């Protein structure tokens, strides 16, 4: 019996075998010419790109490691906070605290104004067992490292400002496609480009919501004060882990550097990632509830294959199947909707006779609160709806709140971005913008109402 045989169905006739064989076993295209000449040296089997050469007929295919259960099944836990009680903190100083309280154990970042203080806070990871902090070479690699760590089982975060968010686009899309939980903080500064690096703006509302090419939907939260910086960061990690989606926390430079009293609770409800070995790990789980499919970590007995190419529920590439592309984008969009139902945001009660409603987010909400108070003293009927969830946008709730047809004014620090989200719900909404790299002050809003500026503009 010959010692050598070729699996014809695998051979591509490249001739590599002939080029290394010390005798004349093979013809130029890998055909078995003189099998009796074989000295069993094994060079051909090593060089063959298709592993088509078999030297021992008794060889059998070896089994792969069997799947076994990994770490705990995840879910909700009441977790003790590290620094409960009353603190005077800025937004940037605050964010590291809820991140660590939510179980974030990996941070990768790159210095940028006005976000760097968040990185300093995350240095605390070095004092926590299993905590990892690394300063990377740019924002692209920062988010890449965050995603890698998340797939290895850690809750992970990065923070940046507009220029860094621009660099992260491709990997944001990757996190969406691979359903990798991660949290990204974007401290908005005045732009475009380098713009005014130390000055506030809200120019990243649309760029954050629509960040990442290819319709990569995600969750975007927008704190209006320091208390929100704490609670919405906890929320960001919970949402990210539950729905396996990147969550962007959007604050402007004013919130980032404003110091305020914040009360940190004794405990938080924290969601830990689920892992069910009987489940498929991509796309909606069979028992579709308030969580995405479960994810085995790298290093578990069950081998995890992750790809940014379109893939099926087992993670296997399906890069030219039209149904799979539709199914993939549908399930991503549906997850974001589910997250909306879970968040269940309610608009503040507005009296039926309120003539004007201001809609704003971030630091503008604070100026608007003051303006509404002072306008009330002057007999003007103005209410305020702060928006803290930019994606998924709470359009149904907003629609209900505006049923009595008030005059709606969207106020923001850019050339008009939030206005487009509001007009999709309420087409008659009016817009007041200011883009000076300085805060919109209560005085500006009061003048706008007292002078009925919107009438003069149309």
């Amino acid at each position, binding site marked *: 019996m010959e010692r050598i045989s070729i699996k014809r169905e695998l051979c591509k006739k490249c001739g590599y075998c002939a080029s290394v064989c010390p005798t004349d076993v093979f013809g130029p295209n890998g055909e078995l010419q003189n099998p009796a000449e074989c000295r069993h040296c094994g*060079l051909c089997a090593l060089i063959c*790109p298709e592993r088509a050469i078999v030297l021992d007929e008794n*060889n059998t*295919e070896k089994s792969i490691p069997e799947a076994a259960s990994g770490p705990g099944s995840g879910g909700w836990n009441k977790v003790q906070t590290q620094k409960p009680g009353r603190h005077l903190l800025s937004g940037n100083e605050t964010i590291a605290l809820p991140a660590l309280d939510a179980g974030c154990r990996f941070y990768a970042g790159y210095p940028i104004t006005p976000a760097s203080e968040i990185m300093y806070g995350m240095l605390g990871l*070095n004092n926590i067992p299993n905590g990892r902090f690394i300063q990377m070479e740019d924002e692209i690699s*920062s988010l*890449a490292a965050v995603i*890698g760590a998340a797939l290895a*089982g850690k809750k992970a975060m990065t923070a940046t400002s507009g220029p860094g968010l621009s660099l992260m686009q491709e990997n944001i899309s990757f996190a969406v496609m691979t359903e990798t939980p991660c949290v990204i903080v974007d401290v908005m500064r005045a732009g475009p480009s380098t713009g005014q690096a130390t000055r506030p703006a809200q120019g990243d509302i649309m760029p954050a919501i629509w960040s990442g090419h290819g319709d990569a939907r995600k969750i975007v939260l927008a704190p209006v004060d320091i208390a929100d910086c704490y609670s919405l960061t906890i929320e960001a990690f919970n949402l990210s882990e539950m729905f396996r989606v990147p969550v962007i926390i959007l604050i402007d430079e004013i919130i980032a550097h404003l110091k305020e009293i914040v009360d940190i609770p004794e405990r938080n409800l924290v969601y830990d990632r689920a892992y069910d070995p009987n489940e498929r790990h991509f796309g909606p789980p069979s028992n579709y509830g308030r969580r995405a499919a479960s994810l085995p970590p790298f290093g578990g007995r069950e081998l995890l*294959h992750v790809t940014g190419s379109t893939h099926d529920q087992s993670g296997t590439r399906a890069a030219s199947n039209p149904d799979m592309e539709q199914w993939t984008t549908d399930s991503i969009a549906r997850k974001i909707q589910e997250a909306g139902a879970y968040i269940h945001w309610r608009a503040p009660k507005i009296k039926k006779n309120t003539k004007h409603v201001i809609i704003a987010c971030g630091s503008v909400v604070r100026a608007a609160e003051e303006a509404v108070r002072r306008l009330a003293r002057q007999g003007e009927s103005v209410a305020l709806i702060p928006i803290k969830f930019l994606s998924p946008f709470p359009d149904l709730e907003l629609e209900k709140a505006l049923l009595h047809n008030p005059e709606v004014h969207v106020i923001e620090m850019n050339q008009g971005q939030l206005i487009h989200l509001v007009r999709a719900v309420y087409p008659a909404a009016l817009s007041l913008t200011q883009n000076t790299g300085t805060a919109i002050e209560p005085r500006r809003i009061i003048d706008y109402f007292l002078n009925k500026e919107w009438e003069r503009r149309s």
Partner: protein
Amino acid sequence: MGETIMNKNDERSPERWIRPGQTDFCPGCGYGTILNYLARALEKTGADPSLTVAVGGIGCAAWIPDQYMQTHTLHTTHGRPIAFATGVKLAKPELNVLVISGDGDLATIGTSHLIHAARRDLDITVFCVNNFVYGMTGGQAGGTTPTGAVTSTSPAGHAEKPLDLISLVLAAGGRVRTEAEGGAEGLNASVESDMLIASGRFAAREIVLTRQPQRVISTCEKALAHQGFSFVELIAPCATHFNRKNRIYSVTDLKAYLNANYISASKATKTPLTDRAGKQLCGLFKSKEEYERLVGGAI
């Protein structure tokens, strides 16, 4: 002569690192061979597939892990696999983390991550498969395309100089002080003390189509076993886009091309510089000085 390729008494076999079936690589492409080499090297290290994460970027070479390796796999964005691998390794230091990707991916769009991972002496192994072009997108020139080579974006011959990846990695590779030397102080203390190991430098270049596959496998094995950053450049010219355009029509032509352009370090030491001008060195290099001395100051 040679190892026993298949031992039926051994439950373990290199095949357990590879998903079954034919690859999608072009006939004449060396990437399937690399898959074969890596499986054997991994098997020799005694590693466990379920504790191994193989990371690739975008391009034909990235398909070696992403489509065919029976380990945890991570198919990342173009040029960034080393950055993703950094996160995986730091998050779970007990994992074997290897990156397998192409020259365009690791040494053109993603060069900065290669430099910085080497500088950090991060304990991962990077296999850079160099086929001289962007194979998957149609054979365009990149950062490693040889001067004069015809590609789809240099039809009259490539005018630029290629990067010498060995020189680059050896120059960037840092030696981080050990804890005893005071390296564990400062901001990155916990990272440095158990992740960044003072290991010396490790950069190797090997040719895939060789009569000494065992040597390539052994280099890959040493790289995998090396504590700290290790780098292996595997030369496998793109059969479809590089070879044909550069008049390499057969395996015989390819061997002639490789012989004309590469020389092993051991042979180089016995060959006068004038007789090996323009040839790149193959072998394992542990210091920039050693490499430069062998190259003869030509880099």
